[in-house]
């Protein structure tokens, strides 16, 4: 397995380089360094001298990919792409175009994102499995049918409706929780309850239906028939045998998203006023802050690849028949 992991880690390098080139090209196709300077300096009365000074201070005065004024290796290294990309591979994100240390900002803003994402994952998993188990237990009955219809209804409703409806009902009408906002420490609990609830409820439809399908597929297998034949109760069959074997595809879906949890949710964070990493990316795109966009895309890619590797590892744990080679 060690060899496999080393190979996967080495694969990361070209993948990340490709992503970096793509991000760089896409960003600068839409925004030139002059546009970025104008955005930072304000739209009115911006002189070319001020723009040139801004670019020089932040290293945006270099050519994008090839420096014709230099010779040899310098023609490659003295470019915007090289200067802005190489440090990323050492996880040195540098400073944003507004002059903030990006690593520090990420370390501060990941906690609000995690305070929502982690409970949503755990609670959502629990609720979805229990609900799916109930439907599987009452399979082919009216209760099962009602559960499936309920799931489809939940799936058909837009996330925005859950958010606005949740804010209206729990925040405005019942006044049980704040409509939006965030505070650090223990005080954050009252602010994250509603986004967690909204995220869990909005995920029940899709999650439960998928898990129900997995459970029903397992329930038709021979080992389940054997378990029933030896007289085990249906509950024991479901929770001790079916759930254990259905965990493999569930793990595939869950483990892959664990590392990227801290990237936050763009919509939830925006509507609930949570200063997490989701809104950090959106703000950076709107402000044309390439340093932040580049850092967050790079980090997101690294985490996604790590997530895939963790999924592979989790296979070997959940199913001893699987060997990584």
């Amino acid at each position, binding site marked *: 397995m060690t060899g496999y992991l080393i190979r996967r880690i080495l694969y990361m390098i070209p993948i990340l380089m490709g992503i970096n080139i793509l991000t760089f090209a896409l960003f600068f196709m*839409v*925004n*030139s360094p002059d*546009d970025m300077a*104008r955005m930072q300096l304000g739209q*009115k*009365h911006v*002189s*070319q001298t001020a723009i040139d000074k801004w670019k020089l201070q932040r290293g945006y005065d270099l050519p994008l990919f090839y420096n014709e004024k230099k010779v040899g290796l310098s023609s490659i290294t003295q470019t915007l792409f090289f200067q802005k990309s190489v440090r990323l591979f050492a996880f040195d994100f540098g*400073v944003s175009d*507004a*002059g*903030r*240390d990006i690593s*520090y900002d990420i370390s501060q*803003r990941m906690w609000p994102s995690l305070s929502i994402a982690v409970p949503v994952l755990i609670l959502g998993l629990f609720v979805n499995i229990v609900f799916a188990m*109930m439907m599987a*237990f*009452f399979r082919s*009955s009216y*209760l099962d049918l009602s559960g499936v219809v309920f799931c489809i209804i939940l799936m058909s409703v837009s996330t925005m409706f859950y958010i*606005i409806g949740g*804010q*209206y009902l729990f*925040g*405005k*009408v*019942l*006044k*049980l929780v*704040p*409509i*939006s*906002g*965030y505070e650090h420490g223990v005080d954050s609990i009252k602010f994250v309850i509603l986004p967690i609830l909204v995220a869990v409820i909005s995920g029940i439809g899709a999650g439960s239906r998928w898990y129900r399908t997995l459970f029903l597929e397992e329930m038709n297998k021979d080992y389940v*028939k054997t378990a*029933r*034949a030896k007289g085990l*109760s*249906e*509950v024991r069959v479901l929770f001790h045998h079916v759930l254990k074997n259905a965990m493999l595809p569930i793990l595939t879906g869950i483990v892959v998203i664990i590392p990227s949890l801290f990237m936050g949710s763009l919509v939830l964070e*925006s*509507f*609930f*006023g949570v*200063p997490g990493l989701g*809104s*950090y990316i959106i*703000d950076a795109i709107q402000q*044309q802050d390439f340093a932040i966009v580049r850092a967050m895309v790079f980090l997101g890619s690294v985490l996604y690849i790590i997530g895939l590797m963790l999924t592979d590892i989790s296979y070997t744990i959940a199913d001893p028949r699987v060997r990584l080679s």
Partner: protein
Amino acid sequence: MQGVKKIDDYTFTITIKGLYPQFNYWLAMPFFAPIPWEAERFYAEPDMDDRNLGLGWYPVGTGPFMLSENNPNSQMVLDKNPHFHGEPFPASSTKEDKDSGFLHHPKQSLPLINKAIYTLEKEAIPRWSKFLQGYYDLSGVSADSFDQAIHITPDGEAMLTPEMKEKGLRLTQMTDPSIFYMGFNMLDKVVGGKSDRARKLRQAIAIAVNYDENIAIFFNGRGLPAQGPIPPGIFGYLEGKVGVNPYVYQWQDNKRVRRSIKDAKRLMKQAGYPNGRDPKTGHALILNYDVPATGGPDDKAQLNWMRKQFARIGISLNIRATQYNRFQEKMRSGNAQIFTWGWNADYPDPENFLFLLYGPNGKVKHGGENAANFNNPEYDRLFDLMKNRPNDDERQQIINKMVNIARHDSPWVFGINTQSLSLSQQWVAPFKPNTISQSTLKYMAIDVPLRNQLRTKWNSPLIWPIALFVVALGLLLLPFLFAYFRRLKQQAPRSML
């Protein structure tokens, strides 16, 4: 520094060359705020940036408040500056201001509040809901909440709805010192230039694009159709009949009435485009409209509306919606034909608006703010005469001539002077709106006990619906429970084995 003379530790004089009355306004701008040199030197030390320590993040100044918490992504807190040099609340005012309740704390030391908390709310719906709950003292009126908050009378006056009146809210209405306009690139061969043909084409378009309708549809009536480059509230703007743009409006029954589409069609015919037909092609004249678009649903409605306005005089409008950066590039290089843009006053002087049509400020040739690249030697001559004059009759006369030139030549369709509506809670003392200066927080007074009392009253939680929900859920689960026990006792069907 040449021209600057120190009088004492806190006073200095600045001598400027020649007349420049607008310099007083420059002195009131944020970049003229005094900053201690020690602070600047402190932040210039090595590695400060790497630790996120900078003047931009931890500002040092001499104002009535100090920024004690600065997290623009969540919350910013201003605390009363104990070292503020001191400034009293005005002791007297006009009768009108006094009657409006603006003179509420005469001679008291400023600021009147100890702390101001600014919280970031990105979405309009939660922001509005929290304002109604009393968690915010002030609010604007967004399009989403407009109907709930504002009632427009048949006379077009904005008033609070009964629900808002019951809450004790106060409505403040201001006309912004700004203008949104549709510009013609005067360097363009079709819509630009000084020929009668092009001028009449522009005048026809100015009549056809009905900004009165635009204000009603897209701004909830919050705006005035602009009659020239100068917005209301700025010296040089004229009310009533004399202030009307005669090329687009007529004065009838003591009010302005938009010219009919027949007038626009007549102008189109005189311009050589009868019924909007281009004689060169025999088809409808095609014009290009360059506009920055965000891709939002409002964009589509706005652009469709604009296309319909041009279609009224037979012109086919080709919309070239681009990202804002590309739009700016087109403007700089002169590749736009018709565009919309706007301007907010830097300071309340007509020079700050009339310079938008001053030839030496042309965007393409000089990189200035004259986006239409308008160039009229007589206008430029008058501008030079006007810009450094005090606000006297002669200046008004010069401005009238300049505005008439702009209306006649029509490099812009004078679009909209927007109006802002703001709401304040009953515990906020009345304050005089100021559309230019941002530093009015020091005059604000809050009745904190009343605020606390009403907040508690408005926000006591309702528990019984939750109890009811739990009981209902329990009842809903009963069939599951019965079915569960029934199934446990059931014999396994053969199909399950």
